[in-house]
């Protein structure tokens, strides 16, 4: 194993640990504002994982849309619906133990599937700049899903405006 490989592993474990810790904090912290901030940390960790997978464009999109837009949207929603958690009230509902058990079993099932392998491994190195190819693919091969998803986003945002308006 070369030095670069060791570095790859170290970076992966740091990123994965940070992502999972932040995600765990996001679902367990009592204060919703704190869990939204932990969620931002988790989004950043996922962007780092994309960089590790050599999907640079997606990493930038992740930071722009998740860290930039969706977190701000969530924080705005929390601010607009503030002041309702009474001091002694629990952050989880009555079925939290069942939910934890279901999540644990699902994780074990997926762990067994993922670890079973061997997965076919592609050894092709990415040498060219992928972003022009991605842009071309979006307006040629995938033009229909691209257009449909843009219309859907427009409809969803207009609908959100209608619903949230007084």
């Amino acid at each position, binding site marked *: 194993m070369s030095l670069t490989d060791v570095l790859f592993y170290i970076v992966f474990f740091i990123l994965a640990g940070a992502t999972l810790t932040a995600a765990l904090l996001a679902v367990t912290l009592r204060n919703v504002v704190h869990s939204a901030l932990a969620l931002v940390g988790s989004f950043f960790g996922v962007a780092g994982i994309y960089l590790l997978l050599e999907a640079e464009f997606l990493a930038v999109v992740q930071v722009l849309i998740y860290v930039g837009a969706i977190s701000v949207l969530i924080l705005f929603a929390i601010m607009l619906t503030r002041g309702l958690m009474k001091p002694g009230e629990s952050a989880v509902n009555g079925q939290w133990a069942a939910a934890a058990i279901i999540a644990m079993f699902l994780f074990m099932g997926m*762990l067994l599937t993922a670890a079973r392998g061997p997965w076919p*491994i592609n050894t092709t190195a990415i040498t060219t700049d992928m972003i022009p190819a991605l842009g071309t693919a*979006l307006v040629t091969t995938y033009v229909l899903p691209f257009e449909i998803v843009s219309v859907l986003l427009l409809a969803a945002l207009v609908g959100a405006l209608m619903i949230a308006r007084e």
Partner: protein
Amino acid sequence: MPPIPISFYLILAAALFCIGLYGALARRNAVAILMGIELMLNAVNINLVAFWRYISGDPAKNQTGIVFALIVITLAAAEAAIGLALIIAVYRSRDTVNVEDVDLLKW
């Protein structure tokens, strides 16, 4: 050639998905439930990108995984906008974001 085996990414995505699932099932605050759903969508995206990098023929030519992940991110944005608008509307009419108190349609 990335040195890390793909199963590491799959296990990370599985853990992230299950944490999100726990958040979506167990939290009382509707905004926190949406946050759990966002975590689950992120986990799915990690899987898509990992499979694109490791399994699709030539990653530079076959961009399906990236395009799929981009579409999922767009859908997540639409879902967050609609979900939060609904939460604000419910808060206006019922003065709560606790999902246990929003039981108008319960039999």
